[in-house]
């Protein structure tokens, strides 16, 4: 029987990535307040701590004795060449500023936390945990006269880290990338599949 992955993420991009590689998943809620994390940490550690913090705040379903589940949380952020972290833009002006700041190059990193949990005596207990963080460098070079067209073509830009969407219309501005492509979108698929195999997640086809 195939295992089921519980994904605690609202990101439609992450859901689309899992669908793309045919990993069955069920959505879960999490109520983590990311501001409670230590934002003074180095970039990759910060992301790992947020992914772990989200895991601690996942609202799990009631289980059956000895039931095993797999739960996934993740966090993605970008930074420019000066090390300034860019999350989701607050408004259109902020989106414009982010696109310009990231034009010279930037990086996006995604950390994920993958837990194997077992239900024992009325509680979910952690059996195994894998945390990984992957960083990708890229050049997303959009000339000024294209920005307005891009924002019109990508109406959900306010929900994307750095306002940069490389999957649709924006792909024509992605000049180069160095590292993992799916990390930019929100989940490093290669490392995730490796981790799922390592932790005993079974997919039957």
């Amino acid at each position, binding site marked *: 029987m195939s295992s089921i992955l519980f994904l605690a993420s609202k990101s439609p991009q992450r859901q689309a990535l899992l669908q793309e590689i045919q990993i069955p998943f069920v959505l879960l809620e999490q109520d983590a307040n990311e501001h409670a994390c230590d934002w003074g940490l180095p970039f990759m550690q910060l992301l790992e701590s947020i992914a772990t913090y989200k895991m601690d705040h996942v609202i799990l379903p009631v289980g059956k004795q000895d039931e095993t589940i797999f739960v996934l949380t993740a966090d993605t952020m970008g930074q420019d060449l000066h090390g300034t972290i860019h999350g989701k833009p607050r408004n259109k002006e902020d989106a414009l500023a982010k696109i310009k700041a990231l034009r010279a190059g930037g990086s996006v990193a995604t950390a994920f936390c993958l837990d194997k949990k077992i239900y024992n005596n009325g509680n979910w207990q952690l059996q195994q945990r894998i945390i990984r963080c992957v960083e990708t460098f890229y050049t997303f070079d959009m000339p000024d006269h294209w920005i307005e067209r891009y924002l019109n073509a990508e109406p959900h830009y306010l929900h994307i880290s750095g306002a940069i969407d490389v999957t649709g219309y924006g*792909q*024509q501005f992605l*000049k180069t990338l160095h590292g993992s*492509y799916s990390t930019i979108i929100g989940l490093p*698929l290669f490392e995730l599949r490796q981790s799922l195999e390592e932790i005993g997640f079974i997919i039957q086809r």
Partner: protein
Amino acid sequence: MNNILLLASQSISRRLLLVKAQIPFVLLDQDANEAECDWGLPLPQLVESIAKHKMAQIIMPQGIEGQHLFVLTADTLTQDKKGTMLGKPSNKQHAYTMLNTIRQGAQVGTAFCLDKKVYRFDRWQIEERVIEYVQAECVFVVPDWAVDYYLENSLAMKASGAITIEGFGAQFLKSINGSYSAIMGLPLYEVRKALEKLNFF
């Protein structure tokens, strides 16, 4: 924007890339025999020569005096670490061999030829041409247990080097160094720039 791009390519991924970028296009036929090109050339020159050869073999529609058209051809090839050129796999066994050799890494190169043509004196003449080569190195690792399923559930048998990085194959793409869309068959960043240079938009 009233200009139309004529795309002379059978590749589904090239069409999808143009659709994503919202660049309107119409498909054209070309009957180039790639085997006529000089396969002894290095990867960049070889794919450039194939893209040009394809352009030369296009069956152009009838024009109107003074009419302008933009025509695009492209070619993509993969080269393994030993320098062996990998086209589309000829059969399953060939695909197994390719996937095995590219585990160490591969270089994917796409060249495109973009012509701005004008119809004058009853024939199409080249007004301006852009030829560009763009490449990317990639590490694409399909584990043994997944190879058969991957070949049956992707367009790998129609892809250079049996590499498909979208859809099911996305999980086997470990890393890229270079242009993502060049691996898919059309370097969108450079194509858009070339179209701008020729005043397409």
